[in-house]
């Protein structure tokens, strides 16, 4: 079965510290992975997707098929990064773009 696991419900770091939000997935085929972010009182929005290989707001994520992981990283956290982060999985050629979401990690960046 397809599954996305985000092991941490809450991650708290100090400003300027590195941050890593973990995401592991379970899928037998070729996955497509996304990170979505929801800032306080804002709508859920796409942060990045693995096929783009972009760095958005200083965040990067590398797909590791051997470890079935797609961890989100940032070398120096900022207070404005505090938000809820969701990892999501879909499959190539799958059902018209269905996403399977993890349960989310709340990132709190302290001053």
């Amino acid at each position, binding site marked *: 079965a397809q599954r996305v696991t985000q092991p941490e*419900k809450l991650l708290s770091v100090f400003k300027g510290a590195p941050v890593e939000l973990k995401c592991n997935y379970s899928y037998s085929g070729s996955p*497509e992975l*996304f990170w979505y972010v929801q800032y306080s009182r804002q*709508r*859920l*929005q*796409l942060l990045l*997707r693995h*096929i783009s290989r972009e760095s958005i707001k200083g965040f990067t994520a590398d797909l590791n098929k051997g470890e079935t992981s797609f961890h989100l990283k940032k070398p120096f956290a900022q207070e404005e990064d505090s938000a809820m982060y*969701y990892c999501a999985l*879909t*499959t*190539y050629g*799958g*059902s*018209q*773009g*269905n*996403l399977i*979401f*993890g*349960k*989310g990690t709340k990132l709190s960046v302290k001053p």
Partner: protein
Amino acid sequence: DVKVTQSSRYLVKRTGEKVFLECVQDMDHENMFWYRQDPGLGLRLIYFSYDVKMKEKGDIPEGYSVSREKKERFSLILESASTSQTSMYLCASSSWDRGYSNQPQHFGDGTRLSIL
């Protein structure tokens, strides 16, 4: 910029009522989705639609139905509201880039529904 509009930000209804949540998107997207978002549970897919008058069950369809009479509009219906359906409801849409990949979903602001 893609705009997904949900008709209400906050809604309070009573148990047993029939409740309608409306969602409209302005980007001619083929796919539309309804999720509920609960703390500690993340987003769970209720129903989705990939074309007008087409609908598919998601992970938690019980107690819900949907309607898609026009491409831009996707309605979620709570047939007989119960307190367990108190939640944040999110609507999303996406396009289907045939043969390549799934396009990202664009979300509305959400409707916080309270059933008393």
